């Protein structure tokens, strides 16, 4: 993945955020990225703090548990560690931008951003008149977004990338399909028969997937439904420990740069991670696909 790429690090909002990918991109010292997503919680903040980011395209950047993202503020208010350009969207309008990008529409006309100054701060969004209305009827035109790479966390996938996801998915499907490449981080790798047993639970089919990585707990500290609980304390800890650039550097050294890979991260978390593992069983009622 070259510097300057536009990337989606999760688009499900507060669950299934691919932090393992975030960490690896930070370790690889990627630069000038455009981070595209409605909300990717502190994933975006830590990438900004390590100087990976030139642009943010989205609806919200912060810490869902703690409030503000300190690195986001430093970058936007003081240009530290580097200035970043913010492309403002609301959640629904970025959703429509991904939808348009995924399904070949040049733009989508919406009502839901009218009256907001986001139309002023994001010149990509244009006002127009609805040509079907008899009376004046303003609409906002949202052009298609087509990121370069989407990373997504799924509960299970086969080796070809055919993936099952359950629970709310935010914009995962639209953002992934809109992207040129898709990288799947699978909590579990299963036999193809498991995925094929339920093709309606496939959100992204394998033929659209460019790479699959088996990475348990790749979404930590965000939750993965039925697999891992949210590590709320970790978010609060991050908020407290990143108030200034020096403390952020210590945090990112400890939790990202000094670790060789996600396995070392899991080992470092140790018992804390084990406590987040979901042990209970609450299974879906089966669906029958028999043909005869």
């Amino acid at each position: 993945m070259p510097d300057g790429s536009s990337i989606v690090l999760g688009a499900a909002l507060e669950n299934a955020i691919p932090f393992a990918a975030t960490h690896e991109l930070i370790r690889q010292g990627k630069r000038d990225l455009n981070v595209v997503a409605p909300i990717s919680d502190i994933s975006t903040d830590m990438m900004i703090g390590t100087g990976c980011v030139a642009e943010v395209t989205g609806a919200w950047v912060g810490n869902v548990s703690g409030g503000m993202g300190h690195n986001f503020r430093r970058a936007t208010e003081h240009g530290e560690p580097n200035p970043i350009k913010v492309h403002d969207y609301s959640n629904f309008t970025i959703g429509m931008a991904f939808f348009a990008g995924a399904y070949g529409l040049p733009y989508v006309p919406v009502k839901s951003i009218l009256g907001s100054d986001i139309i002023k701060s994001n010149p990509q969004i244009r006002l127009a008149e609805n040509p079907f209305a008899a009376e004046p009827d303003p609409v906002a035109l949202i052009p298609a977004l087509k990121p370069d790479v989407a990373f997504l966390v799924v509960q299970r996938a086969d080796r070809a990338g055919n993936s099952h996801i359950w629970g709310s998915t935010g914009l995962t499907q639209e953002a992934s399909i809109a992207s040129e490449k898709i990288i799947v981080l699978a909590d579990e790798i299963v036999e193809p028969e498991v995925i094929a047993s339920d093709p309606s639970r496939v959100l992204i089919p394998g033929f659209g997937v460019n790479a699959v990585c088996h990475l348990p707990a790749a979404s930590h500290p965000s939750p993965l439904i039925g697999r891992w609980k949210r590590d709320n304390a970790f978010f609060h800890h991050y908020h407290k420990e990143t108030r200034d650039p020096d403390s952020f550097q210590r945090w990112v050294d400890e939790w990202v740069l000094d670790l060789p890979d996600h396995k070392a991260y899991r080992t470092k978390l140790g018992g804390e991670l084990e406590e987040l593992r979901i042990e209970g069983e609450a299974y879906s009622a089966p669906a029958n696909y028999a043909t005869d």
Partner: protein
Amino acid sequence: MHKYSTQELMIIAAARQINDGERIFVGMRLPITAYGVARLTHAPNAVGLFESGVARYEPAEDMLYTMCDGPNQFGAAWTTGLIQIMGLLSGGRVHAGFIGGAEIDRFANINTSYIGDFENPTTKLPGSGGAPDIAAMAERLIVIINHQKHRLVEKVDFITSPGHLTGGDARKKAGLPGGGPSVVITDRAILRPHGPENELHLASVHPGHTVEEVIENTGWDLKTTPDLEETPAPTKEELDALHRIDKEGFWRS
């Protein structure tokens, strides 16, 4: 009379804004708790919608840190995508939405984006999330905000989520389908748009607070509605419902 905290009163005042059978766009924290109280008291047939892609009947059994946490998804009516849920809003199927904000002005426009000039802000706030969509499209909007002079201002620096814009029928002229803010609930009072200008007026003062104090802590020349009242204190039923939701007493202190 029962003991309650200011936060508890705010939640209960917000819960009272929900009518039975309504589809409510619920945000995080306070609104999610307000939804739960409403469901357990006077609105047993309300439906809660969460923009990440969740619809629920019963409030979640466990504490939620975010709308995406497992307990909000387990036993949900629907777990789906953002477009499906926010599309109900955009399609005009949502009765009311709840949002908060950093700043609100006298026409109930809300800022969660930039303090200062957006091209060179003094403070960059986290941003909009889905609030502009909710403010634009819900039949009515319920706003929850802490009542401080620097938050309730004459004019917001940046309209993230449209209220009544420049007042009067400006919303309609701007092409906004939803009705806009119908009520602003603070920790001191309840404000409502009043008169042809749709300017926020003081409609109700919470027990233990005064009209003067509310006006002093508001950044514009706050007028009162003709039928100004005192916010009714929470009932035992309401507090019991709240304590069932807020098991850990998060909102009690």
